[in-house]
């Protein structure tokens, strides 16, 4: 599903964020991307949604070389990839329902379809009773569930999560990852960047460990591995 070949990303000022990354992530996999702050986790995710371009190397998503993708096709790439971030990125003046429906509207789906599917997906993430609440009336965990619902509403083959539990109460973090796991079980490839040792050790998924922009470990059913 995702193939990276000798991918290097150098930011302005000669900052090596990623160096010579080669890896494959198969369809239906769940992978944790771990590593200390500044190791290149967010950069990894930005390259996949073409928010940043690699300095060298090739990235393939579902056999499409995205480095050669025409600019106007980028939105269609992003529709295949749901994204969840540490800061939720919800629109404050839209309700929970509207925030999720928005992702359908933007891709040209009909309002009728949204009326059917949005409540369904919100029920899936456990917010079926908060359709009309605004983001600032929700807890961090609830807001992140809305963001996950929005990322999932168009049933993307890939879901990327950059520290989704970072702003969520630790007691609720596991619930968030359970949700991602369920989405993964429904067939979506999930990549989650995280600092959270407890989470990684509990779920026992593939662990890709980065340090200074390099892969230092890639292990199935792995653990966090730093002390």
């Amino acid at each position, binding site marked *: 599903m995702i193939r990276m070949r000798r991918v290097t990303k150098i930011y302005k000022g000669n900052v090596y964020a990623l160096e010579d990354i080669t890896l494959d992530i198969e369809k239906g996999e769940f992978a944790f991307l771990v590593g200390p702050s500044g190791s290149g986790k967010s950069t990894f995710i930005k390259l996949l949604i073409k928010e940043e371009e690699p300095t060298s190397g090739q990235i393939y998503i579902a056999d499409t070389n995205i480095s050669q993708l025409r600019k106007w096709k980028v939105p269609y790439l992003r529709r295949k990839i749901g994204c969840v971030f540490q800061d939720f990125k919800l629109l404050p003046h839209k309700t929970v329902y509207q925030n999720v429906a928005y992702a359908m509207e933007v891709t*040209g789906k*009909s309002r009728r379809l949204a009326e059917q599917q949005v409540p369904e997906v919100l029920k899936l993430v456990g917010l079926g009773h908060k359709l009309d609440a605004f983001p600032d009336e929700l807890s961090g965990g609830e807001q992140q569930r809305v963001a996950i619902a929005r990322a999932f509403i168009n049933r993307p083959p890939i879901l990327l999560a950059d520290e989704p539990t970072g702003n969520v109460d630790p007691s609720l973090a596991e619930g968030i990852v359970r949700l991602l796991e369920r989405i993964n079980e429904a067939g979506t490839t999930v990549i989650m960047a995280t600092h959270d040792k407890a989470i990684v050790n509990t779920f026992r998924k593939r662990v890709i460990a980065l340090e200074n922009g390099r892969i230092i470990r890639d292990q199935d059913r792995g653990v966090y591995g730093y002390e």
Partner: protein
Amino acid sequence: MNKIAYFASETWASLRKNLILAVAAIAVVAVSLGILGMVVMGWNMFSNMIKNAERKVGEVDIYLSDLTTEEERAAIEAFLVSIPEVDPTKVTYKTKDQALQEFKERFKDQPELWEYIDENPLPNSYELMTKDPKDVGLVVGRISNEAPFRDRIEDVKSASSAIEKLENIFDKFRQIGIVGVIALAIVAVLLVSVTIQVAIFARRREIGIMKLVGATNWFIRWPFVLEGISEGLVGSAVAILVALAVKVWILDKLIENLQFLRLSLSPGLLAVLFPCMVLGGVVIGALGSAYALGRFLEV
């Protein structure tokens, strides 16, 4: 249909949010297009007047002093007839009394203009036609420089010299008008673009999220383009109302009251002018938003 409703509601919400800026932009669009409308109508009226007057272009009038004796007059007449460019059969003498009679005839609807005249202020005059209208200037020059008893000739006037002067004056007006319209149109484009920039800035977070969930560039741009175009459209509507008011309350009154100038507006003019003003508004709005989008929205 769904999309149109979406774009319309986004456009309206955005316009309402920066109402003051939008009103300023609309006002400048209206002023520039309004001036355009007035310049075009004024110019049309003037060129119709010139066209009506052009029949008289071969005519030269020579006004004589009341002190001119019969012999002097005869000598002047002989000179006029002898000018090679003048049609000798079209040299006519008009006395003060004839001139006054003609004046009364022409303004018989406005007797207040002549009722109280007790001494005839109009001079005796010659009226002649050149063989070719283009020789008018030459003939006027010859009379002013070569005629006998030149101190008895008070004035030599040709219709064309008057028209030329008028034409020059109106040309200046038109040039100033056009420069003004262009300058104002540029200001209007910039102001529209400022309102769009503010709208983009206010929605930058939303734009980021739209990109994230895979909105196409045009889906993101459309509400802003529509916002610019609606400002242009509203501006042109205001301009058309103002131009219409000027026509009904000023130009029509001028045409009616200054009939001797033979002013008129060409019949089909407004049917062309008003759609052009609407188009101008759309173009200003579209350019303004295109400029803002090009500079401040990298997608």
